[in-house]
């Protein structure tokens, strides 16, 4: 079973964000693998361990993205593909999906996996768009995958504690719900082996993908507050005493 996992590199969770026009200043912050995608990668590795085949880690973005692909290789992906694009952050979801789809089309994949959404843009559309562009069946927010007889039996999460079982043929596209599995760490041996693994680079131009954007981020800003927050200050003990008083006599909730 050959699986392509789409992985995004995003600013590290605790990175201090400085807004610069319609994006953030990228120069002084660290980047990491988008957490929801790490669950998709783990699921791909588990499926490979069970059914054999190959796992390809696919990522798009500037040069630094290679680091995240290497992390995927260290965890067990067999090879990597980097779509080099310095302007990636400004692409709309359809634009990125077109480049990813063009790359995936050149591979013989049985299954394409994505995470639920990215921790930066948070569009949460890539998997569904890939299914549309590749003309493959899809399902999203997947909590369990069981492959038997050329098709997948899936557990899909719905809202408010509901789930649904779905049958989906192969090849197909799935977006994976975070928390589906426990993500592995890269071993030292994995890190060493990763260095010998193939990491190909392509560009949108070489793929022949030109994208008319369908949307544009005009600007990014700190959200305006909707509620007036009363901040309590002092030592932890003082803060605790003040808070209990407020809750008792002002908010009257305890």
């Amino acid at each position, binding site marked *: 079973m050959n699986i392509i996992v789409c992985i995004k590199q995003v*600013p590290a969770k605790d990175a201090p*964000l400085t807004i610069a026009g319609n994006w*953030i200043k990228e120069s002084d912050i660290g980047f990491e693998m988008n957490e929801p995608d790490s669950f998709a990668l783990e699921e791909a590795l588990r499926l490979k361990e069970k059914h054999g085949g190959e796992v390809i880690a696919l990522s798009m973005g500037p040069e630094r993205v290679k680091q995240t692909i290497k992390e995927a290789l260290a965890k067990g992906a067999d090879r990597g593909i980097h779509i080099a694009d310095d302007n990636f952050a400004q692409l709309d*979801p*359809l634009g990125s999906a077109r480049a990813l789809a063009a790359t995936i089309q050149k591979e013989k994949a049985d299954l394409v996996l994505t995470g639920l959404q990215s921790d930066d*843009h*948070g569009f*949460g*559309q890539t998997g569904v*768009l890939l*299914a*549309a562009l590749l003309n493959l*069946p*899809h*399902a999203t*927010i997947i909590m369990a995958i069981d492959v038997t007889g050329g098709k997948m039996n899936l557990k899909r*999460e*719905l*809202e*408010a*504690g*509901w*789930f*649904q*079982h*779905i*049958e*989906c*043929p192969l090849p197909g596209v799935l977006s994976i719900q*975070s*928390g589906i599995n*426990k993500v592995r760490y890269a071993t030292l041996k994995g890190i060493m082996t990763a260095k010998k693994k193939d990491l190909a680079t392509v560009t949108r131009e070489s793929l022949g993908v030109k994208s*008319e*954007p*369908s*949307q*544009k*981020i*005009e600007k990014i*800003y*700190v*959200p*305006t507050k909707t*509620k007036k*927050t*009363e*901040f*309590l200050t002092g030592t*932890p*003990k003082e*803060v*605790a*005493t003040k*808070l*209990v008083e*407020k*809750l*008792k006599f002002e*908010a009257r909730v*305890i």
Partner: protein
Amino acid sequence: MKILVIAEQRQGKWNNTSFETLVAAQQIAAATSGTISALVIGKGVAGLADELAAKNVAEVLLVEHDLLEAYTPDGYCVALSQVISSAKPDLVLFPHTYQVRDFAPKLAAMLGKGMIGDCIGYRNEGGKLVFVRQMFQGKTAADVSFVGAAPWFASFQSGAFRSDLLSAHPSGKAPVTKVTVDLKPEQIRTKPLELFKEAKSAVDLTQAPLIVAIGRGIKAPENIPQAEALAKALGGEIAASRPICDEGWLPMERQIGSSGQTVAPKLYLALGISGAIQHVVGMKGARTIVAVNKDANAPIFEIADYGVVGDIFEIMPALTEALEKAKSV
């Protein structure tokens, strides 16, 4: 502006975010001298179409087909792309539900368009609509606009608009138009099976008046007893944001947010929770919200009544002690 609202039902029951989206549509229509068509899709949903017709809309489109009885992304996309191609709306609005996430981007792509999903508001800038959505897990907001020709596709997050502002039809009832779609079984590639809930949970957080909720800031499972001690001193229930339950540190039934429980307690004490929208939609109805977080810029403070910028590991024991002291006097 011609606006089409795709309302969502499952097994004949509305997803209430549909009505919030209808409110958004009514506001946009008022600002742009537009008209609204509301659409319901499924099988045996004529009664729901009548309900929509009682709202202030120009018309209701009723899309029914045997193959639309259960939701499938293929079925919905094939059917709705036909409806949109003939109805030619400028703006197609959806409630941002799990179902919409599952098909709407594909529907837009089939028509060669993009979608601005998960919006929390919009602005009308001299006739140009700018949509507001969160980025970076709620740490920033972003204004996003459409480029290119209509139709444009957008979805609104649950709670972005108040459904109680929905206005009724001025003269009683809008016309309901049945729209036939051409749909074949082989076009539907996935097979939806049964809907189910996991083992019934022992705790019903929706009924808890006082909730202590923990997020990533709790750092390790060993620290959870500190939060539980605080919950006990308060006489409340312990709950968590999604990552905590994903890690298995607390059972899934204690998860608050879009994929977990939606609660509206008297008091919601958020400890080390940053306040990503997926969590906030599950608790912003709380009467009083207290947030403790080391990051003064955490989005949770936007909705907090009382805020403490500080270390939860210092505040939790101090607060537990203060609550116990308050009880004893």
